[in-house]
């Protein structure tokens, strides 16, 4: 799925379909919880769904090292976010200092922008309310904290995941 | 462990009932829709626990359908209702 630029080449096309079939076979295995007798029906459906999916959802460029960097970061930060908001909800004082900030996006691809807007809602203290041109409107639970920097780190990881052209500079 | 699963499911159901208060109180249509989202997640967790407690793997499929359809109502709300819905409800 990485070589979306050379998608027209016959070899890449075959590889795309093989990967899709494997992906849908995995899904079928999970859905049937590994029951062997389900594979008769499954074989037909998996191939049909895989071929159909190639035209409905063309392959997207992503990078495995980018994903390996993104997933642990995401899990850790969403855990921190959950603990943070749970603490605020459970404490009698209900400490909140909401604010709305604008964050200028450097990501170029629509899918990575949308992905980022979604992921923001799971990270500590941030919630994306609107994407206007090149800006994200972010609602903050607590305005204390360097959110421009945190969002910059997230943006870099998202860019790495989707091999976004418009990568922000390191550091 | 069955006891724990059943107790957990009961607890989750209680939090779901508490969430109903938000549907009744509003005040905006968005608040009510948000409560519907809360019910979806809670019901999924509840079903997964019951699947273990009752030894009924089919319940995991029900949970899967819940997870898939949780978003349908919200998307409809956003696409169709966002102007109309508030008029009668933001007021009362």
């Amino acid at each position, binding site marked *: 799925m990485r070589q979306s630029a050379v998608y027209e080449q016959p070899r890449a096309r075959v590889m795309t379909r093989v990967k899709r079939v494997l992906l849908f076979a995995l899904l079928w295995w*999970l859905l049937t919880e590994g029951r062997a007798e389900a594979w008769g029906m499954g074989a037909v459906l998996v191939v049909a769904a895989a071929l159909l999916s190639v035209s409905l959802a063309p392959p997207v460029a992503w990078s495995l090292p980018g994903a390996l960097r993104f997933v642990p970061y995401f899990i850790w930060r969403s855990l921190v976010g959950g603990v*943070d908001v749970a603490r605020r909800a*459970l404490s009698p004082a209900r400490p909140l200092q909401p604010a709305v900030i604008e964050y200028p996006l450097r990501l170029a691809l629509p899918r990575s922008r949308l992905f980022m*807007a979604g992921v923001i809602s799971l990270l500590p*203290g941030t919630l994306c309310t609107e994407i206007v041109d090149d800006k994200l409107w972010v609602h903050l639970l607590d305005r204390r904290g360097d959110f421009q920097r945190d969002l910059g780190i997230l943006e870099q990881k998202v860019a790495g995941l989707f091999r976004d052209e418009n990568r922000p500079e390191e550091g | 462990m069955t006891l*724990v699963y059943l107790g957990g499911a009961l607890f989750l159901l209680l939090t779901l009932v508490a969430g109903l208060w938000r549907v009744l109180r509003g005040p905006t249509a968005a608040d009510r829709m*948000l409560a519907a989202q*809360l019910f979806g997640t809670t019901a999924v*967790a509840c079903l997964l626990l019951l699947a273990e407690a009752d030894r009924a793997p089919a319940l995991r499929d029900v949970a899967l359908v819940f997870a898939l359809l949780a978003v349908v109502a919200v998307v409809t709300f956003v696409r169709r209702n966002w102007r109309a819905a508030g008029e009668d409800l933001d007021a009362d």
Partner: protein
Amino acid sequence: MLIDGLSLLLLIAGMIFFLAGTLGVLRFPDVYTRLHALTKADNVGLGLIVAALALQAPAWAVVGKLILVWLLVLVASTLSCHLVARTAQRRGVTPWQ
């Protein structure tokens, strides 16, 4: 025995997050802060419950299915969260200060 204990611990932690999510939805002052509470706390809660059940799962496929359910809820709730927040903003709901 050890695994049962770990499962129990994860389950209780998950319940606390669900309780916190619901409390947040009931106590927080406006729709945006409520969305914060709901989305973050409930997803962590569901993740912990899924982890607890995965430890007890009879087969790897079941573990995968549990994770699949969690991922679907994750996608669904971030999407809903963003859409509801956007709707509220476009309807002119001003954030609580």
